[in-house]
């Protein structure tokens, strides 16, 4: 690779039905790297939760586009993914984590998606810039 960092992007309508296309994009990105199965599943899950969140809330009740950019990161080897949408400003990291110790009766799964993402990834940050929500995650290969 010699410092050459390949970056790829997918712009797609933020709709839950497009999850399959998003998964295909991520699989393609991961083909470039020797990614352990467990880490691949975790990346797929992080991507799904973030994409579904954007699809459900960013433009509701209308719809809009999301751009996902992926690049192989080095030192340590990992995958960096950026999600950009032009929906309502929303910082998913500002929300308190759900209480995962409460009983069945009180359970609802709101907020569980982002909670899982935070547990799985090695780094996550959010910015709102020029009318865009920009969420970046990094997952290391080791």
């Amino acid at each position, binding site marked *: 690779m010699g410092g050459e960092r390949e970056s790829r992007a997918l712009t797609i309508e933020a709709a*839950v*039905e497009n*999850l*399959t296309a998003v998964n295909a994009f991520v699989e393609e990105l991961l083909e470039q790297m020797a990614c352990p199965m*467990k880490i691949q*599943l975790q990346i*797929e*899950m992080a991507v*799904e*939760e973030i994409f*579904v969140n954007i699809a459900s809330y960013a433009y509701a009740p209308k719809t809009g586009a999301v751009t996902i950019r992926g690049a192989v990161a080095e030192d340590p080897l990992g995958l960096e993914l950026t999600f950009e949408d032009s929906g309502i400003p929303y910082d998913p990291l500002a929300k308190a984590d759900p209480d*995962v*110790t*409460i*009983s*069945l*009766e009180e*359970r*609802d*799964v709101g907020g*569980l*998606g982002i*909670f*899982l993402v935070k*547990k799985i990834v090695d780094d996550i940050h959010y910015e709102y810039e020029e009318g865009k929500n920009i969420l970046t995650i990094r997952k290391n290969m080791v």
Partner: protein
Amino acid sequence: MEIKKVLNGEKLEIFLSGRLDAVTSQDLDKVVSSSLDGVKELVFDLSDLSYIASAGLRSLLVAQKRMKKQGSMKLCHVNKDVRDVLEMTGFVDFLTIEED
């Protein structure tokens, strides 16, 4: 994802294979809301389930809440990756998981 149902009297077994994600969990929700009348024992066989996301957890939660009122529910043959997600989210605390 494939959903296979086997009804035996008041016992319903649901075999899930593939990925339980935000798209396929909608199919499971339909099965759960239309198949549980009169069911006292619900078993999810997850032998061939390779992946579960939060939407899938919600489907299991809905099923568990309903079965708590009318009988019992358990999961069996849960693989390591799926179990990790159940553990991270505390779902292991209120779901019955049969050990292999």
